[in-house]
């Protein structure tokens, strides 16, 4: 707005100055033309080019009238009604009025001479612009014009400029408003969507198409954050659902046994039986809860990645085999291994769990005198662990679901042996977190092979 005001003022000032200069020039030119005319009239009978004598000029001037030979534009000097035209007055060097045009204002007086060294002086007297000239002989002339019309024109110009300026300002205001609105609207869309998402509608996302380019990056970032939020909430819901679901049966056992036990007096043996059953159910619940927690952490964001370091798979497997020796002996399972020095980056506790789950599964799935073969080697930048058994094998239809939570293939195994149904799900989660993959090959009656592929620890290769 300030800029507009300044521009308007400048425009007006320029116009005013221009006009004034023009008027002054006109007056000057008029005066000169008049003087020249008088000279010519005075010099009519002479042609030597010299300026006429003052007396002669006085004469001519005093005798000027409408019939004198003057150019057209000076006719108005003799027309008393031509008050808007240029008027003129001449005094001689003694201050005697030689000529006053008929259209001159009545209150004309002998003007003061211009200041020292100047021929001309200009003044503004009321609404008249007047030029005072002092000739070499002391003759003073005054040329003027009523500039009311000019002033009116300038005022109208000023009004127009102001009007334009105001319009410009208004347009600027509206334009700015509209522009601001356009910028704010996508921000508003984002903020409203985010509010809805935070309020519970977790699956919603910001429609990136509705935001313009500057904000689309922000929208993408926010959408990614909402993805993470949604998956975290889903994981939590999954955990809660799994936990409550799987815990219901052992809880029912405890409730059923205790209420039965309390119904009447029982023998010590009966009480012992009841307590043992309750204890078993409790143990099962504990192992379930632990497995669920492990699974939840493994499937989490990777925030809990403790002890990430270089792990010797050889060492892990060897230790696991040591721990499982009693179980293997009990079932008289023969364990053979073909191990090489292989290192991975990861959490050694988690990888131990993988080894433990796979090998103990292999032992458990067979009757007595079973066979378990463990192979560990490196190949093309990957560590490969294979655990195979000569057990009953797994039908093809089960294979895709094997790593699902609580998926149970063998009906008679169920939740009896302390297996929560989460072992393979945990293995898969850990392997995935370490950037690897797990495969299974199995034929009913021909045993199974579980293959874990993990990236090798680069640092150890050299």
């Amino acid at each position, binding site marked *: 707005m300030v800029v507009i005001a300044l521009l308007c003022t400048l425009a007006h000032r320029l116009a005013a100055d221009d006009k004034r200069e023009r008027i002054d020039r006109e007056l000057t030119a008029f005066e000169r033309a008049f003087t020249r005319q008088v000279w010519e009239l005075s010099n009519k009978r002479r042609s030597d080019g010299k300026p006429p004598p003052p007396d002669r000029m006085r004469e001519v001037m005093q005798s000027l009238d409408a019939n004198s030979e003057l150019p057209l534009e000076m006719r108005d000097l003799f027309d008393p009604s031509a008050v808007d035209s240029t008027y003129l007055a001449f005094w001689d060097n003694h201050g005697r009025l030689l000529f006053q045009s008929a259209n001159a204002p009545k209150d004309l007086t002998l003007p003061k001479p211009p200041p020292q060294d100047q021929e001309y002086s200009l003044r503004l007297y009321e609404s008249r612009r007047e030029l005072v000239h002092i000739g070499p002989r002391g003759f003073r002339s005054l040329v003027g014009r009523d500039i009311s019309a000019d002033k009116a024109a300038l005022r109208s110009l000023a009004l127009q400029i102001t009007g334009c300026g105001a319009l410009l300002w208004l347009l600027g205001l509206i334009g700015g408003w509209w522009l601001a609105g356009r910028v704010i609207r996508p921000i508003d869309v984002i903020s409203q969507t985010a509010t809805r998402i935070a309020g519970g509608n977790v699956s919603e996302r910001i429609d990136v198409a509705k935001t313009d380019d500057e904000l689309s990056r922000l929208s993408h970032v926010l959408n990614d954050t909402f993805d993470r939020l949604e998956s975290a909430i889903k994981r939590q819901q999954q955990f809660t659902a799994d936990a409550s679901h799987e815990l219901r049966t052992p809880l029912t056992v405890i409730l059923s046994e205790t209420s*039965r036990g309390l119904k009447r007096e029982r023998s010590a043996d009966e009480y012992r039986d009841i307590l043992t059953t309750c204890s078993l159910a409790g143990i099962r619940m504990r192992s379930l809860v632990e497995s669920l927690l492990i699974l939840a952490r493994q499937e989490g964001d990777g925030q809990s990645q403790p002890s990430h370091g270089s792990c010797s798979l050889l060492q892990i497997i060897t230790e696991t085999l040591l721990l499982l020796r009693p179980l293997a002996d009990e079932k008289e399972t023969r364990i053979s291994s073909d191990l090489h020095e292989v290192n991975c980056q990861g959490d050694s506790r988690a990888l131990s769990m993988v080894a433990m789950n796979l090998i103990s599964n292999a032992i458990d799935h067979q009757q007595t005198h079973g066979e378990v073969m463990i192979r560990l080697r490196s190949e093309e930048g990957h560590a490969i662990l294979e655990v195979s058994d000569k057990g009953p094998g797994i039908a093809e239809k089960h294979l895709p679901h094997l790593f699902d939570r609580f998926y149970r293939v063998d009906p008679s195994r169920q939740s009896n042996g302390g297996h929560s149904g989460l072992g393979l799900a945990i293995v898969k989660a850990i392997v995935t977190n370490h950037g690897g993959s797990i495969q299974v090959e199995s034929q009913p009656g021909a045993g199974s092979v579980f293959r874990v592929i993990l990236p090798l620890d680069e640092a150890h290769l050299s």
Partner: protein
Amino acid sequence: MRLLIIEDDSLLLRSLAASLREENYAVDTASDGEDGLFKATSFDYDCIILDGMLPVFDGWELLARLRNTKITPVLMLTARDALPDRVRGLDNGADDYLTKPFDTEELLARIRALIRRSAGQASNLIQIGDALIDTAARTVSLRGESILLTPREYALVEYLARHLGTVVSRSELYEHLFDEDDDTLSNLLDVHVSNVRKKLGADFISTRRGHGYTIEPST
């Protein structure tokens, strides 16, 4: 009354069977869908307690197949309490639905209700002449005085009372009072009948030679 429990969790199966046997039911068990269906279709149980999540095929599947041939009352027990599962269970033919964990007392009451309803009787109390049988409390009283019956005797009385007016064959009685784990001899039945007659009156149980036993309703 003979019941069938089909539940895959062995701890729970044992516990439920024990609780129900203590309530004087003869109890058969199965731990997968296939075995459960086989047993359920081979015999007319007085009530079947069926778990939803079973191996081989699940409880809902078993129910659908069972209902082709049997009208045995079925109470579904399951950890799945979501509304669609309950509706599906009930619509597939279950007569009642209990979610785990449940209170054993509630289970017993619901079983009693199902048996009562399938006998066409509205109340737990059955009045026969001067005798009043309270099937909830499992007591019998004669003219207000409580009569002590052994579990087998009571089971016999209750079964005949639930089939008031119908003649129940000896084999049917035998099958409904003893479960598969029982290796009692069938002539024990006669002993129980005579004992009941001693306690509740000779006319309490009538013999239909060649057909079986019955309790006549009081007019």
